[in-house]
């Protein structure tokens, strides 16, 4: 048997998808194209899901059309990480801060990034969204460039701890 190793070579592939957003996600995307953040209220427990979606993953019920809730672009950092590992898919300069933001009035967290000093990030930090210039808005959450700290006292741990 040959002792030569089996060769390995890199063969990049590209996959293009057609994506049907569906009624609920389309409503969310049309809103964010206009700079509005739409959540959706669960008819069973009244909790607000952001981004809005078609049904509740916990109660298995469809969300009613009139359950849409517009949310402000500010909130609280629930938890975070400072990332120093590159990934080909992520066009951010290292190190960067990933955050889970609980928008005011929402009951689910949004994963995004924070622009700020590495030592200012903390759980409970109050933040607001910084948007791309209006002419660059598309149907994407990437219309928000990043979040930045607000000059406000930190949120009380008890007010967000159940979302970690």
């Amino acid at each position, binding site marked *: 048997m040959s002792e030569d190793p089996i060769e390995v070579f890199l063969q990049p592939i590209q996959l293009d998808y057609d994506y049907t957003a569906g009624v609920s996600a389309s409503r969310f995307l049309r809103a964010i194209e206009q700079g509005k953040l739409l959540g959706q209220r669960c008819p069973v427990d009244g*909790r607000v899901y952001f981004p809005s979606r078609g049904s509740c993953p916990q109660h298995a019920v469809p969300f009613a059309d009139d359950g849409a809730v517009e949310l402000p672009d500010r909130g609280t950092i629930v938890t975070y990480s400072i*990332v120093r*590992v590159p990934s080909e898919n992520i066009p951010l300069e290292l190190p960067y801060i990933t955050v889970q933001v609980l928008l005011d009035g929402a009951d689910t967290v949004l994963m995004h990034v924070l622009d700020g000093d590495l030592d200012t990030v903390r759980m409970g930090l109050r933040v607001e969204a910084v948007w791309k210039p209006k002419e660059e808005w598309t149907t*994407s959450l990437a219309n928000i460039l990043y979040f930045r700290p607000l000059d406000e006292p930190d949120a009380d741990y008890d007010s967000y701890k159940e979302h*970690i």
Partner: protein
Amino acid sequence: MAELTAVVGIGQTKYVSKRLDKSMPGLIREAAERALEDAGCTWNDIDAVIMGKAPDMFEGVMMPELFLNDAIGGAYKPMLRVHTAGSVGGSTGIVAASMVQSGIHERVLCVAYEKQSESNATWALSISLPFSLASVAGAGGYFAPLVRGYIRRSGAPEDTGIRVAVKDRQNALRNPLAHLQLKDISFEMVANSPMLWDPIRYLETCPSSDGACAMVMENEALAGKRSNKVAWIHATEMKSEPTMFSGRDQVMPQAILDNSKSLYKKAGITKPREEIDCAEIYVPFSWFEPMWMEGMRITDINQGWKMTYEGATALDGDFPVNMSGGVLSSNPIGASGLIRFAEAARQVRGIAGDHQVDGAKKALGHAYGGGSQYFSTWIVSSDKP
């Protein structure tokens, strides 16, 4: 369960970063042949083959079970492929066991593998979904914020994760199959390793490994006739939950709490810490040892870090965890769960070599996957239930 089932053969490859002398079929066949040899069986003795591996995106080979069928002796036999993300190795063992427990087959082979040298797992897990901002870098990027949440709510000392990493890497030195063999491992070495996904350091993470693991399982009529020790399966359990819903406890998911409760009920265990002799738990980042000690109800909520601190989870502690060195020392992702199950079985068969826990009679195997949303567990014992 109808038919009592036992693990009678175990085969593993040596875990390494690049297995350049073997193709994917060659790699899994090596593990399968070793399991058959351990069981004293031939390919003809196998009634069905169950195969597991993690997401196809890792190697970019879609539905690998199609081209791997003959390499694992599946031709003209029932063959099933299992997939539940990182927990898939555990689920593969459970599906295989259920084939015998149900009375459908008398003897089955299960195999799980990953060839990370032919894959890019961080890329495959850093998904750019349409209409969103890609910011979560790999599994570490996903789990680091949850580890931070655990530290906050438990008040665990910041060096708990370092202690787990040192312990698992010391254990790996006793397991010749383990990938990472860091002879001069120390607290300082882990503490000074670069912070990758704060608060997770480089040496608190798992390596990327090539490897495969296989097991042969039999019903009582066959296994009961054997003169050597087998591992009797007392209970298996799988639970899952959605990745995201409002109020979801991402740090301590309901699914693992439900899983452990139900597993022990099936196994007739009321005091898990006393009745179980040792455990192989899926710990890809060091902090998940204390977290899953709580999830598996070995200790109370927010108290898991104390087990690490008191040395309870060390090889000579009262509840040894990851005697083999664990996922922190070898991580062929798709196989990692099955390795946990197999290592639990080796312990109760008394064949774990230098990382054997003296007199181990009952052991726990555990795997998790996805966004802490799939859990697979089992209890094996040297004695019949």
